[in-house]
Structure formats: structure tokens, C-alpha cells
């Protein structure tokens, strides 16, 4: 399918937790094509490189695309300062998303800013979806209401115990897997969490798809910059987050995180 690059109007760009923003764009053709797990590549002011941000939602009726991002540096700080009406230069949707074929129950696990693509994915999942999200603390919790409104059973953990389970997201995730009916685990978050979830999925003999992040250049697969190491039979090879991912099926690709 063709890529789309367009100046898209900002409808809303609102802080939803300290340092986390929810951005709605008027982008009908992008919203129509977007699949869970894909990302948008955004030009941020005078920064030399675009910023890849995962798609959190696509409303095909209103023709709007939703991105939720965290201020990580100068690019995302610039983005947070843009008001509704501004035309943002976006290339989307990019990358390969989640594959739900043959699954009737799935658990969506997000860590911090890894949560937004999980909302999009859980809502689109054709069977029974569950979610488990981990955050630093109570103030860093995002999208809780969105999951609840979508009727997706949700467990929340915080690193400091200020809300929900005190500890790692793998704990409620394991409880959910124990209760059965889940054939697929989808996850996006920091590397230690990804490793923990992959290990968990293996232990419960459950399919697992991870959404990965890497410093990115072109975003379309041309520059071969956003490399991820994959163990392939005897040797290691490098695949690319923007081209082969960002979602990798760990049963097909032994990604080294």
C-alpha cells in the first residue's frame, strides 16, 4: 500500500498526565488505513529528524488519528507546544502492526508510554481482550478511562505502589494467563518489561508479539538505521523496526532485546 505524507490539522493536543499528551489529527486517509501497532512519523519544527510515535487510535467516521506521546526531548517538547489549527507534517501509517489471526483471547500489556498502541490494539481485537498496564506512579497513569470505556478488563500496576498493584506488570499478567483463555500476549514497553513478558509468554506456551522502539531515520525502510538484532538459526541478523516491525512475532523472530 502507498505511504501518505500530508500536512494534517491538529484538532486537539492536550496534556493527559504530567508530560504525556493526547494528540488528535484530522487525517481521514491515514485513519482509514491505520492498523493497530503501526506508527506515524512526525516532523517536529526545525529538528533534523522526524519523531516516530505509535498510533493510539483511528476514528474512521470522523477521519481522525490519535497519537499519545511523552515529552522525551526537544522534538516532543516542540510537538507539545503546537495548538489546534496547526498543520503538522505527518507520514502515516507506517510499519507492520499486530497479527490477530486465529486468536480468540489476548492480553495487551503496556509499560508507560508503551500503553497507547495497546489501547488501539485491544479495541480492534476481534475476540476477548484483557489489558495490564504498568506505570511509574499514580500521576503517570494514562488511558485508564479509555480502556474502561471500551469495556476492556484492566489491571494497573505502579512501581511505587501509589495505585493498583505494587510491582511489576508481569504479576497481574501471570494471574490473567493462569485463568486461561488467552492465546496471545501483545506488549510494548521498556526493555526489561519486554524481556519479562517474553519469558512469561514462553512459560505459559502463549504466542507473543512485541512492539519495539529504536532510534529511527527515514521511517519507511530505506536507510536501514533502526536495527534490531534477531537470532536466526546459527547467526544473528539485523532486521529493522520501521520495515519489519515495529511489531515482531517472537515465535517467528527471536529478537534480542
Amino acid at each position: 500500500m502507498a505511504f501518505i505524507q500530508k500536512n494534517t490539522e491538529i484538532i486537539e493536543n492536550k496534556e493527559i498526565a504530567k508530560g504525556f499528551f493526547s494528540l488528535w489529527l484530522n487525517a481521514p486517509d491515514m485513519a482509514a488505513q491505520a492498523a493497530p501497532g503501526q506508527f506515524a512519523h512526525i516532523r517536529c519544527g526545525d529538528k533534523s529528524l522526524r519523531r516516530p510515535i505509535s498510533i493510539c487510535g483511528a476514528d474512521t467516521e470522523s477521519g481522525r488519528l490519535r497519537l499519545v506521546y511523552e515529552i522525551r526531548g526537544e522534538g516532543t517538547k516542540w510537538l507539545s507546544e503546537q495548538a489546534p489549527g496547526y498543520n503538522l507534517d505527518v507520514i502515516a501509517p507506517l510499519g507492520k502492526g499486530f497479527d490477530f489471526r486465529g486468536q480468540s483471547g489476548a492480553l495487551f500489556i503496556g509499560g508507560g508510554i508503551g500503553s497507547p498502541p495497546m489501547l488501539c490494539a485491544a479495541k480492534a481485537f476481534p475476540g476477548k481482550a484483557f489489558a495490564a498496564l504498568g506505570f511509574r506512579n499514580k500521576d503517570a497513569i494514562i488511558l485508564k478511562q479509555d480502556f474502561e470505556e471500551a469495556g476492556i478488563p484492566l489491571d494497573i500496576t505502579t512501581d511505587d505502589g501509589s495505585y493498583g498493584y505494587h510491582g511489576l506488570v508481569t504479576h497481574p499478567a501471570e494471574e490473567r494467563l493462569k485463568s486461561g483463555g488467552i492465546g496471545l500476549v501483545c506488549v510494548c514497553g521498556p526493555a526489561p518489561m519486554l524481556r519479562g513478558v517474553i519469558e512469561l509468554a514462553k512459560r505459559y506456551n502463549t504466542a507473543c508479539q512485541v512492539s519495539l522502539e529504536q532510534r529511527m531515520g527515514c521511517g519507511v525502510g530505506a536507510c536501514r538505521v533502526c536495527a534490531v538484532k534477531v537470532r536466526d538459526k546459527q547467526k544473528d541478523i539485523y532486521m529493522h523496526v520501521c520495515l519489519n516491525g515495529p511489531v515482531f512475532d517472537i515465535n517467528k523472530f527471536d529478537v534480542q532485546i
Partner: protein
Amino acid sequence: MSELQVNIAGVSFKNPVLAASGTFGFGREYGRLYDISKLGGICCKAVTLEERQGNPPPRIAETPSGMLNSVGLQNMGVDYFLGSELPFMRRAKAAVIVNIAGRTAEEYRAVAEKLNDSDIAMIELNISCPNVKEGGAAFGVNAASAANVTRQVRRHCKKPLMVKLSPNAANIAEIAAAVESEGADAVSLINTITGMRIDLKSRRPVLHTNTGGLSGPAVFPVAVRMVWEVYKRVKIPVVGAGGIASWQDAAEMMMAGASAVQVGSAMFLDPYAPLKIIDGLRDYAAREKLQNISEIVGSVKAYE
């Protein structure tokens, strides 16, 4: 002959705007945005004799008005290129310039020989990649080794040969003269300038290879200067590259002595950059009443 058509070393290109090697893959990805045959030509990602995995990530770092990269020549090897990438590029009607690299002069020669009977426009000899341990820029920063690899490839290569020069050489004009004397049909410059960035929190270099190649608008004035120096020194055509992001940049590079230009990093911000540059040059040629854009090549009125 249209106003933008240019001739480089006997090869005719429909316009002087080429995609720079390493930024455009083999055209497949940007081909999902527009018709890649609109470009003058495509310098494909470097091709080596055997498949290469490249460097561990991170491979990219943002810099003021530019970026550092350290991909390390990841590619599937020349046989894969011939079997899978070239047929696609030819179907897309792109003029193909194949960037080749090797660990040794023999490897360069072997890759060039494999391309002898293929339907390509030109070979670009990459003796300037700063991101590999063996070969690459090791050949390009010394006149004797640059001359040696050019001689070995020239002897066995049936295609027009353009040598891509490193700005990390002490005197780039001397390298240009050395490869010209060994039969290079053209030179392209500049490849990236070696640079480094450090993350304050971790005290780690941002790039896994510690250093990488700087490109983007930050290097543009350096590239203009080097193109000008090389243009004055050699008789073969010079293809200018380094931070070109607009038609004005392209025209400036041509005035410094470039017969054509390569657009690289600018593509990452604006995939349509090369097409906008082509349109801008066409309008410029009309406004300046040029019969052909080549009239401005080397036209800088330098101070005595």
C-alpha cells in the same frame, strides 16, 4: 535536449538530481510515495561481495542541523542485488548508479566485475564509508591507496566509474587528482564527516560504534568548498553531495563546480525533497533563460 538533462561521463541523466547512496535503499520504499523515475538517477545503498549485517544499534544520532549515522554497509550482497533489487529498479525505469564497497581492492574489483553485464548506468566506488573497520574510508583518505583501488577496479570494470571521496582526507583535491589519473570517469563528494555524540546521563556515545558520519545541512558549506577545490583540480565531472535540501542548495553546489547533485539526509525530513529540487531548478533555469542547467556549473565568480 531539455533544460535539465545532464551528461556525466558519457551517461545522460534526465535531470541533475540523484538520490544519495544509503538514504534511498534500492528505491522500493520511496517508490511507495512517488514515481522514482522522476529522479535523475538513484545511487543505491552500498553493495558488497557478500551479505553484511552492519553495525549494532543505535545507528543514528540527531545533531544540530544534521545527523550522525553508522549503518556499516548492511546489505544482502551483490548477487542478491542483481537478482532482486536491480530488476525492480529497472522496471521502475530508474537510472541506476551502483555504490560498491569492499574490504580489499580485490573485493571491490570482484563486485565491479559482477556488474559488468548488468543494465546499470554507472558504478560509484565507495572509498569513503567511515563506519566500517576494513576498507571503506581507509582507501579514501590516502592518495596512494585511493589510486590503487581505482586502478584495480578500472582495469576490470566496463561501466563508467565514479569515485566517491571522503572529506576526512587531508587534501580531498589530491585524492581526486589521484583517482582521475587512474581512470576514474567522475568523482562524487562528499561522503560523511566523522563525528561523535555523547549521552550525558549514561556517558555513553549515542552511536554503538562510538563515532559515525555527519550529514545534513551542517556539512553543506564544507561540501561546497570541497567541490569547488576539486572542480578546479580535475577535468572529470564532479557530482556534489552533502546537506543539499533545497533547489537553492543544488544551484549553489553546481556553481561551485558540480555537474549534478546527490540528495540524502534531506529525504528523511521530506521524502519529496528531490522532486521539489528538480522543480525548483527547472523554474530557475527558465527565469535565468538558461538553455541548459549545465551552464551554471563552476560559474562561481571567485575572488582572485
